[in-house]
């Protein structure tokens, strides 16, 4: 093909493709991106028991025995080992006692044995370019989750009720969301690509079960990174690699109930930090008002139902 023909080809292509104007809908793009993120988090937490434990932003639980809760008695510390000190992070406070990964694993699993006795509140902060904050209340018995999301990057405030259940062994999620920026709401149902083979016990759980946390601890590459004070509690930190970053779980050194979970991922192997999720959690009594909040969909008055974003 001669250069003249190539020039003609370029003109023809421009002419062919110039027929339709295109105006991107920024709000829709932001909304769809936010939905994708939430779905990815939900899928991550419910399908990969080990990896899910710390990855799911507002959907995972940990325990924050502020002021002392009944859960705090679940994990005794009578078998606390003595021995050499574990490593400490730079931000760690002084703590003379050290724990092995195996020891912490046992204690945390025991502390979470009574997970069904509580409603779990998670306050999540995601830093980085997609930053937002969310508060979730989760009922471990029903796997239902109620979320208030504040997304300053175009999404505004929304509230959502998230349901996780099985349909013919296929994990299914139902998301009822009300958007305060548009005063609309929608119901979106999506499911895993295929049925679960083997046992389905616990697969719909959106909270950290003792078995899941044990799997997470058993996944290897885990190390104790030290101690630091979190909201007045001395906490032991555990860390493992995560994608191009790391995950950390900080547990109360007295009760071994989780206090904070951190997921940090870098844009590439040389950084900078692309996203960081920090979840602070609290065990709450199963009051009637909290059970209603989590388990009953209550669309705000005046909101109009719309089709779910595709």
């Amino acid at each position, binding site marked *: 093909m001669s250069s003249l023909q190539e020039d003609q080809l370029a003109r*023809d*292509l421009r*002419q062919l493709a110039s027929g339709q104007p295109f105006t*991107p809908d920024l709000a829709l793009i932001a909304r769809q991106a936010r939905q994708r993120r939430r779905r990815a988090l939900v899928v991550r937490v419910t399908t990969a028991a080990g990896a899910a434990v710390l990855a799911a932003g507002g959907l995972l639980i940990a325990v924050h025995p502020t002021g002392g809760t009944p859960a705090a008695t679940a994990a005794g510390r009578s078998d606390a080992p003595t021995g050499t000190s574990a490593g400490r992070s730079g931000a760690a406070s002084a703590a003379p006692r050290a724990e092995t990964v195996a020891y912490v694993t046992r204690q945390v699993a025991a502390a979470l044995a009574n997970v069904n006795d509580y409603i779990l509140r998670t306050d999540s902060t995601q830093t980085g370019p997609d930053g937002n904050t969310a508060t979730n209340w989760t009922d471990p018995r029903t796997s239902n989750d109620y979320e208030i999301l504040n997304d300053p990057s175009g999404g505004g405030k929304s509230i959502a009720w998230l349901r996780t259940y099985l349909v013919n062994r296929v994990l299914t999620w139902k998301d009822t969301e009300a958007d305060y920026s548009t005063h609309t709401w929608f119901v979106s149902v999506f499911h895993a690509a295929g049925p679960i083979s083997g046992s389905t016990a616990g697969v719909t759980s959106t909270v950290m079960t003792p078995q899941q946390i044990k799997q997470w601890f058993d996944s290897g590459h885990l190390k104790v990174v030290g101690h630091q004070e979190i909201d007045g509690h001395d906490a032991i930190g555990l860390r493992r690699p995560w994608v191009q970053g790391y995950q950390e779980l900080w547990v109360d050194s007295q009760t071994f109930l989780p206090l904070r979970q951190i997921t940090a991922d870098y844009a590439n192997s040389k950084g900078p930090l692309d996203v960081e999720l920090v979840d602070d959690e609290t065990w709450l009594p199963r009051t009637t008002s909290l059970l209603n909040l989590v388990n009953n969909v209550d669309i705000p008055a005046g909101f109009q139902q719309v089709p779910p974003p595709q």
Partner: protein
Amino acid sequence: MSTRDEEFPQFIRNRASLLHQSAYLLCGDWHLAHDLVQETLVKTYQHWTRVRQANSPDAYVQRILINEARGRWRRRARDMPVVRFPEEREPAAPDATDEITRRAGLLQALLALPLRQRATVILRYLEGMSERETAAVLGCSEGTVKSQSARALGTLRSFLDREESTL
């Protein structure tokens, strides 16, 4: 306001139309092109940090678009229309519709190309990218771009030559 909120709208204002045109030439359908671009922009928005840090954000986004098109081709392979060259055309007297007819034929010929060759032609001749830039988008060597381009142009030339002989 975050960096993404400031930069992303500006970026897509400059890029969206060309992406839409590329998408149309990749798939030959305006509605599907719209979907492809929408999907591309959502992914661009989700991964804005990576996009803006890329050596060429334009190339990065173009690659998202082509990968998305490739994925849809795989998923919808059985549903995609089969486009064939006209084996024989009736001679037609030149008139005002010739240009439109010729371009429609060119689109058919373009859509008959394998996706990679089609993408090469679009990147080189619609987007005006160099062979090096095209290679960066397609994730291949400049030599591969040259060979893909040569094959694509050879196919299109045979079509255009046939068109000229029938007009």
